[in-house]
């Protein structure tokens, strides 16, 4: 087999291997086992920058320019140093905007202009097509050279027919590969993971191949670096080249460095791998060092190989661009040569595939789709079409083939006119035209669409005029005089010496003028033109991409479309899963009655626009949606103008407001009426402990609620859906709500929800944990103190310096009958007007800060009871608190006990006196009684001695007796005797009554005891008051059989006597007050047995007692008698005797005949203790 076939089959096998790698990576990604989305694959895929232009062309350039090839790689190295400032921002914007290409990115920034997107696409295609042609040329040339091994061809082969041209078949193969892996998904914003893994693999292959040939040439063909560079020493021209002085002098070095830095992100393929295919922004951190390292390594042996080539192939017989391949061939190393060829194929195919994917996306989205929409071949209308997705895929595939065929055509027609390096730089210069639009667009809000179009179009025209047309002229398509004399002989317009300014390098000349005009017009036109609202919105979304607010920008739409129509038509362009997911998510999050028949809200249209942007580009997506909307009558331009002006004014205040909101200590969040979280501050995130990853565009209250449910923020929830619905319902109440929420970490948050007129809800979160704890502690202490004060037996009243009541405890309520709520705030002097002395003392106490006291103040409560109290005033000594605490002690009982004690002592003294008097009376009384008895005896007729003595006296005893009978002396004597006996009996009773210390409990017959007492009472009379006990009728109702009662006879007599006397007095007083004829005041005395008790009833038929008097009749000192006529102690002492001394009872009830009836019960047996 010929070597050429080996090369051909190995080429096929290598491309097949790439297929397998890409397919394997895609399949792994589909299984969720992604290994393509890592920083190393990303960094190596960036090395698509190193195309065949690097692989072959760098050596060629080194052979002519020495170290002049280095700026092309130093530029990107420096670019990645400033990646944090530039590339990171571009990545963030691209992800937010779902960017599909550089044209999409630029047009998005400038109001999603289809015109600008189309212009960028045209520039890119025209600028990059030569570059793709360059790759095809490199593959073709390298194949030709290698297939002739061992012959080393001096020049390229003669032109061949297309069908015989291997480059054509390479083109077809690459087209198939690109179609297969570049258009599997319609959404261009999705990542081509398999493709990127294949590109990364190619990067490794080309690096390995280049280093292999470098090592071989340096250390095997020559004796190391020194040996190679010594070859230069003798060659002045080469020495000069290596020194690079020529480049330094004319500024080429710096210009090239700048140009390559710009090209590293402005070339469509570089933008594709750097931005569109980036899966995570953090991958840039690795790329920042790994990509420059790759560039360093791949350029390490460029100069040695170039020098070796010049030495090995002197005379220029072999094209320097092929030294990498021809040197191992010359050393009879076919395997190494084959490896180099594969490296070159890798470099070329990688570039072609990625560039074609990028360009086909741009051409399809930004040229073909807009044209089709313009001619109604692709629209959102009612016409049913299910072929939109397939049509778009087919368009993209056709575009890929078209681009590659056009590139092949370019290669066939004009490719030989420039060296590889020159073609590459032409493309670099074209791509650099995008740089002002990108850099200005992401850092300057003022850049306008008109400025961008003006700058790019003129810059591109200058580029074409100064670089492309001269190339055509050199290829014979235009007369050479066009270069030498200018068009129409106008020397000022000479394409390589515009306005008479010439450079050594036509590239520098073109770069200067295109950049000057591009940037100049971009800036100046932007300054003198205005943005429309879409531009204004997008400008902020780009420049302020790191601020949250931009993720929620909802742009205006110029009409309406029903949700059902929108969903149906979106399904024509997007995979059904993704479309259903979007609409399903919206339906689930919709608060207010979602209905397919309702008009789609602006935010849903914006979401759809983003989804479509990934398929047909943002500019086409917007136009596509706009064409489907029913127009409203509002003049949108006018509205936009108004909004523009208002928005600019609002912007300044928004910044101020933002800084204020960010610095308040409260968490603040705002949900729009669709429940989207549209604004929040730092404290909101901190207080609610929400991860930043959750706070992305489109997060809703439902999402946050779900997150909190998962986190256990609301405890155990059984029905999660119902809970969320209720939570959302509560959150969007129409009235302002305030509540406290205790979080699982025991912090307490005060949540205030305030609904706005727009349907949004602003919620503030305040951490009140500390203040709540302090409040609880304060409440506890207050309750404790209140309880302590209320539990005090004294009334405590707090007053301030003005005498107003501040505290009023429960005892004060009880004493005064006034509730605290009524008392607090009143003046003490108004509540206690009766004690001016006390008020004066209080005032004095507060002034002098010394306590004061007043004792036994007499007052009457609301029931008319006489009470006594002690008042103590304590001035408040605490700092900042003035006033006093007044303590009121009810000492009524104490005072009365004291009085009773005094009275008892008095009575005791009187009793003793009475006993003494009785004893003294008893002796003469005994003499009287005895004497009367003796007289009666000595006057008796029967006694002999009396007869004898009478006869001796000259009379007879009978005469004396008759005399005495006739004169009634005998009766008088009898009366004296009886009176004496009665007096003796009275004295005896008095003695027994007064003999208190000699209490003698025994079983007594109460009938006798009562009769004795009545006997004593019968001696009670008062002439002055016309009072005589004996006038009263006594009814006795005694049973025949009666058990004795266990009692102390004297005390029971005292009680009964008291009852009889009181009753008698009452009846006489009533009789005196209302004299009545035939009145019969009487006592009914009953005695009867009741179980273990003997009961005595003393009932009178006097005036009786009112219920009020009955209730108080046993109270000490209570009396119904006139002042001075009674102590009020009688019944209370009686009560004491019966209840305490005898363990009996005494009560009073209305009498059967209108009087009062006292009932005494006494035990029939001795109690356990008396």
């Amino acid at each position, binding site marked *: 087999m010929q070597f050429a076939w080996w090369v051909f089959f190995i080429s096929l096998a290598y491309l097949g291997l790439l297929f397998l790698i890409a397919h394997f990576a895609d399949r792994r990604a589909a299984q969720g086992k992604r290994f393509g989305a890592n920083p190393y694959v990303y960094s190596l895929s960036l090395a698509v920058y190193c195309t065949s232009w690097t692989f072959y062309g760098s050596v060629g350039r080194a052979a002519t320019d020495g*170290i002049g090839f280095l700026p092309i790689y130093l530029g990107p*190295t*420096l670019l990645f*140093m*400033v990646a944090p400032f530039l590339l990171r921002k571009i990545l963030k914007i691209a992800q937010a905007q779902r960017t599909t290409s550089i044209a999409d990115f630029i047009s998005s920034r400038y109001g999603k202009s289809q015109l600008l997107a189309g212009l960028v696409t045209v520039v890119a295609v025209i600028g990059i097509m030569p570059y793709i042609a360059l790759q095809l040329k490199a593959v073709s040339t390298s194949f030709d050279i290698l297939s002739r091994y061992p012959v080393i061809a001096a020049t390229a082969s003669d032109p061949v027919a297309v069908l015989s041209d291997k480059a054509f078949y390479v083109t077809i193969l690459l087209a198939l590969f690109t179609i297969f892996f570049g258009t599997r998904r319609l959404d261009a914003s999705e990542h081509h993971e398999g493709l990127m893994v294949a590109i990364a693999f190619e990067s490794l292959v080309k690096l390995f191949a280049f280093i292999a040939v470098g090592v071989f040439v340096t250390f095997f063909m020559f004796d190391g670096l020194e040996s190679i560079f010594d070859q230069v020493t003798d060659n002045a021209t080469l020495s000069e080249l290596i020194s690079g002085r020529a480049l330094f002098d004319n500024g080429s070095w*710096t210009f090239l460095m700048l140009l390559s830095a710009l090209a590293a992100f402005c070339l469509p393929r570089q933008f594709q791998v750097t931005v569109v295919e980036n899966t995570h922004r953090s991958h840039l*951190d690795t790329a920042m060092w790994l990509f420059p390292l790759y560039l*360093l390594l791949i350029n390490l042996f460029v100069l040695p190989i170039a020098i070796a080539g010049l030495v090995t192939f002197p005379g220029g017989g072999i094209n320097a661009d092929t030294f990498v391949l021809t040197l191992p061939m010359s050393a009879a190393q076919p395997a190494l040569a084959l490896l180099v060829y594969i490296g070159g194929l890798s470099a070329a195919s990688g570039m072609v595939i990625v560039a074609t994917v990028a360009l086909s996306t741009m051409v399809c989205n930004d040229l073909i789709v807009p044209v089709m929409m313009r001619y109604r071949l692709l629209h959102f209308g009612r016409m049913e079409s299910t072929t939109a997705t397939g049509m778009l895929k087919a368009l993209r595939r056709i575009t890929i083939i078209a681009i590659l065929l056009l590139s092949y055509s370019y290669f066939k027609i004009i490719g030989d006119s420039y060296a590889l390096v020159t073609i590459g730089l032409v493309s670099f210069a074209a791509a650099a035209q995008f740089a002002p639009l990108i850099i200005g667009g992401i850092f300057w809000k003022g850049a306008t669409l008109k400025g961008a179009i003006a700058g790019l179009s003129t810059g591109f025209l200058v580029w074409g005029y100064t670089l492309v047309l001269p190339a055509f002229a050199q290829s014979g398509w235009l007369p050479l005089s066009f270069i030498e004399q200018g068009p129409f002989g106008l020397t000022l317009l000479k394409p390589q010496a515009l306005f008479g300014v010439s450079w050594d390098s036509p590239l520098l000349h073109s770069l200067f003028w295109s950049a000057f005009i591009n940037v100049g017009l971009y800036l100046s036109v932007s300054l003198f033109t205005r943005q429309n609202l879409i531009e204004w919105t997008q400008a902020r979304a780009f420049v302020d991409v790191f601020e949250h607010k931009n993720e929620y920008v909802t742009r205006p739409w110029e009409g309406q479309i029903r949700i059902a129509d929108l969903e149906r038509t979106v399904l024509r362009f997007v995979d059904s899963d993704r479309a259903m997911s979007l609409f399903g998510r919206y339906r689930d999050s919709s608060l207010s009655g979602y209905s397919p028949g309702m008009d789609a809200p602006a935010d849903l249209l914006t979401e759809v626009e983003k989804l479509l942007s990934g398929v047909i580009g943002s500019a086409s997506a917007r136009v596509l949606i706009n064409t489907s909307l029913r127009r409203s009558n509002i003049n949108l331009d006018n509205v936009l103008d108004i909004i523009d002006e208002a928005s600019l004014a609002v912007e300044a205040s928004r910044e101020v407001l933002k800084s204020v909101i960010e610095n308040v200590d409260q968490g603040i969040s705002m949900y729009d009426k669709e429940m989207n979280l549209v604004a929040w501050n730092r404290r909101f995130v901190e207080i609610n402990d929400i991860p930043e990853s959750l706070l992305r565009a489109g997060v809703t209250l439902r999402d946050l609620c779900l997150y909190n449910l998962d986190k256990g923020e609301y405890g155990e929830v059984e029905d999660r859906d119902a809970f969320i619905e209720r939570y959302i319902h509560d959150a969007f109440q129409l009235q302002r709500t305030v509540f406290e929420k205790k979080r699982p970490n025991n912090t307490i948050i005060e949540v205030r929800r305030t609904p706005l007129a727009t349907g949004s809800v602003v919620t503030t979160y305040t951490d009140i944990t500390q203040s709540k704890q302090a409040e609880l502690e304060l409440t506890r202490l207050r309750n404790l103190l209140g309880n302590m004060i209320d539990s005090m037996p004294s009334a405590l009243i707090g007053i301030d310096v003005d005498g107003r009541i501040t505290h009023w405890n429960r005892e004060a309520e009880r004493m005064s009958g006034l509730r605290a709520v009524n008392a607090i705030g009143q003046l003490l002097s108004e509540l206690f007007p009766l004690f001016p002395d006390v008020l004066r003392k209080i005032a004095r106490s507060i002034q002098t800060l010394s306590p004061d006291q007043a004792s036994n103040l007499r007052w009457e409560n609301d029931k008319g009871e006489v009470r006594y109290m002690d008042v103590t005033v304590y001035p408040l000594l605490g700092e900042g608190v003035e006033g006093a605490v007044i303590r009121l002690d009810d000492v009524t009982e104490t005072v009365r006990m004291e009085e009773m004690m005094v009275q008892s002592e008095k009575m005791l003294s009187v009793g003793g006196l009475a006993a003494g008097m009785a004893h003294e009376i008893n002796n003469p009384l005994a003499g009287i009684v005895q004497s009367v008895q003796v007289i009666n005896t000595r006057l008796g007729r029967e006694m002999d001695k009396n007869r004898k003595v009478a006869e001796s006296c000259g009379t007879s005893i009978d005469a004396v007796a008759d005399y005495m009978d006739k004169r009634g002396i005998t009766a008088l004597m009898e009366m004296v005797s009886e009176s004496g006996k009665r007096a003796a009996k009275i004295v005896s009773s008095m003695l027994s009554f007064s003999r208190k210390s000699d209490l003698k409990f025994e079983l007594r017959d109460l009938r006798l005891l009562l009769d004795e007492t009545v006997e004593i009472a019968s001696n009670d009379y008062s002439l002055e008051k016309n009072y005589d006990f004996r006038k009263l009728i006594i009814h006795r109702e005694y049973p025949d059989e009666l058990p004795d009662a266990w009692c102390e006879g004297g005390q029971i007599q005292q009680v009964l006597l008291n009852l009889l006397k009181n009753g008698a007095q009452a009846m006489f007083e009533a009789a005196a007050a209302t004299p009545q004829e035939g009145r019969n005041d009487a006592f009914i005395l009953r005695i009867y047995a009741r179980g273990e008790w003997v009961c005595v009833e003393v009932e009178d038929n006097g005036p009786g007692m009112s219920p009020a008097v009955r209730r108080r009749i046993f109270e000490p000192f209570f009396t119904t008698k006139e002042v001075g006529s009674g102590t009020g102690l009688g019944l209370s002492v009686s009560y004491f005797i019966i209840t305490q001394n005898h363990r009996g009872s005494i009560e009073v009830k209305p009498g059967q005949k209108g009087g009062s009836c006292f009932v005494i019960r006494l035990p029939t047996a001795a109690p356990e203790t008396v």
Partner: protein
Amino acid sequence: MKKQQEPGELSARGTGRARMLVAAILGALLLNPPLLEIFSVDPSARLFGWPLILFYINLTWILLIVMVFLPRLAVLFKPLGSAAQRLLGKRSD
């Protein structure tokens, strides 16, 4: 709540951003005329076999890469340093 930085993950915020900016400015100055002209005065000068200008450019290139990679190196070697410190500390005890 701020995202916790994972081990080995570099952030270009703060000092990192400043270091990158300094590296870029320094690189631009070092890799451009007139500094480069100093090293191209004598084309025959060699260092380790390399022409002086080429050696200087490659060395500067490497240094720039190291400047970017340095924080990652610090992260990688931090555990080793800590382990060594602990080891030395134990020995000194």
